[in-house]
């Protein structure tokens, strides 16, 4: 009986994991992920906390948060100590997840459509898409920078909304904070922590 229970639990876990894994083709990966997110976030039976947990889970699995953190740090990533980088990465991850959930939990339903995908190199594919709010608002063009170094596991590195790169905006925001604080990474870390604990 004990063995059967373990067997059933294992199958459930495997099934859940396979349900959460999206396609390895960048175009299908974005399509499946966004449609999954749209259906969950527009589900009125889910609480705000459940939606926030869902967003965190898919972000941790499908966004290259570590690389995004390093990118937004700019040149300082080359001169900072390993310990500082590791502290920064931890703070950045918490900052990113908090800011993402805050942006998405109040999401209202939209229609999502993939337009095209362009392979830029072995490492990157840009997937172009558009999102049309159901309330008739103007449609929004979104390009997804997908990191494909591991072809089996594509990861999102940037969103370019109507030509505005979120990663670049974040990088320039951090650069300004660093510039006015003698390039002290610890001050940036403390500002990120302040945001998370606020």
């Amino acid at each position: 009986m004990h063995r059967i229970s373990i067997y059933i639990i294992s199958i459930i876990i495997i099934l859940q994991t396979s349900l959460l894994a999206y396609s390895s083709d960048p175009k299908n990966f974005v399509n499946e992920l966004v449609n999954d997110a749209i259906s969950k976030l527009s589900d009125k039976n889910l609480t705000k906390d459940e939606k926030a947990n869902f967003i965190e889970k898919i972000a941790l699995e499908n966004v290259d948060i570590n690389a995004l953190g390093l990118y937004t740090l700019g040149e300082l990533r080359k001169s900072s100590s390993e310990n500082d980088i590791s502290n920064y990465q931890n703070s950045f991850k918490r900052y990113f997840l908090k800011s993402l959930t805050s942006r998405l939990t109040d999401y209202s339903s939209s229609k999502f459509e993939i337009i095209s995908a362009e392979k830029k190199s072995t490492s990157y594919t840009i997937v172009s898409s558009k999102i049309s709010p159901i309330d008739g608002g103007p449609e929004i063009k979104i390009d997804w920078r997908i990191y494909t170094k591991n072809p089996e596991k594509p990861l999102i590195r940037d969103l370019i909304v109507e030509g505005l790169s979120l990663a670049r905006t974040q990088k320039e925001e951090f650069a300004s904070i660093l510039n006015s604080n003698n390039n002290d990474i610890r001050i940036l870390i403390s500002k990120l922590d302040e945001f998370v604990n606020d």
Partner: protein
Amino acid sequence: MKLDKNIKIFISVLGIVFFLGQNAQATEECFEKTSRAIFKFNLTLDNYIFEPVAKGYNKLPNPIKTGTSNFTSNLGTLLSIPNNLLQGNLKQLGHSIGSFAINTTVGILGFLNPAERIGLKPHKEDVGQTLGSYGFGPGCYYVLPILGPTTARDSIGLIADTFVDPFAHVTIREHEMFGLSGNSLDYYSFKATDAVDFRADNDQNFESLKKNSIDLYSSMKSIYLQDRENKINNSTKEEDDWGNLDN
């Protein structure tokens, strides 16, 4: 006459700043402390005036909002026409002239947008973009009271806009054109309506940005500069500086 003299002085000052800033990076600031103070003032103004007006505007029935947006967009096309010509962009010139002619007539003074349904989608163009397309760099960055983020090049463009825009000729300079006349109030009312429409359209985005930025001033600067770059290139070319992150 006095106004013309002031404009000349302002252009000369900006010209000096602009040419001094020719080699400056777009990210370089002219007077950051002052800009940050003006930015703070603009935010307060936004909290007390623009945001409540935009929220009220967003409560209007959809046909009124869309009609207003179409109307300001159509009048804005008048500025795009000479700029398309100055940029030698004949395709866009066709889109702008066609769109303005159809929307002003069939589209009842621009409140409707039948031109879009037949594939005419004019880009918004101004003198700042035209100068950018000629290869002039942005010069340094700063913030103007009420008008918001700008660069030396775009400030010159902003003034030059009033010289090439036929609507500005009819209104600000009170020159009659095709039997139409107007005054400064018409011009500034149009600009204010356009600004409210833009603010209302971006209300949620702005709220989200305010809530999630550690340094809102820098986020707005980055967004402004990226947007101007895209408009000058007429594309959404993304910067590929991810290269050495391939771990």
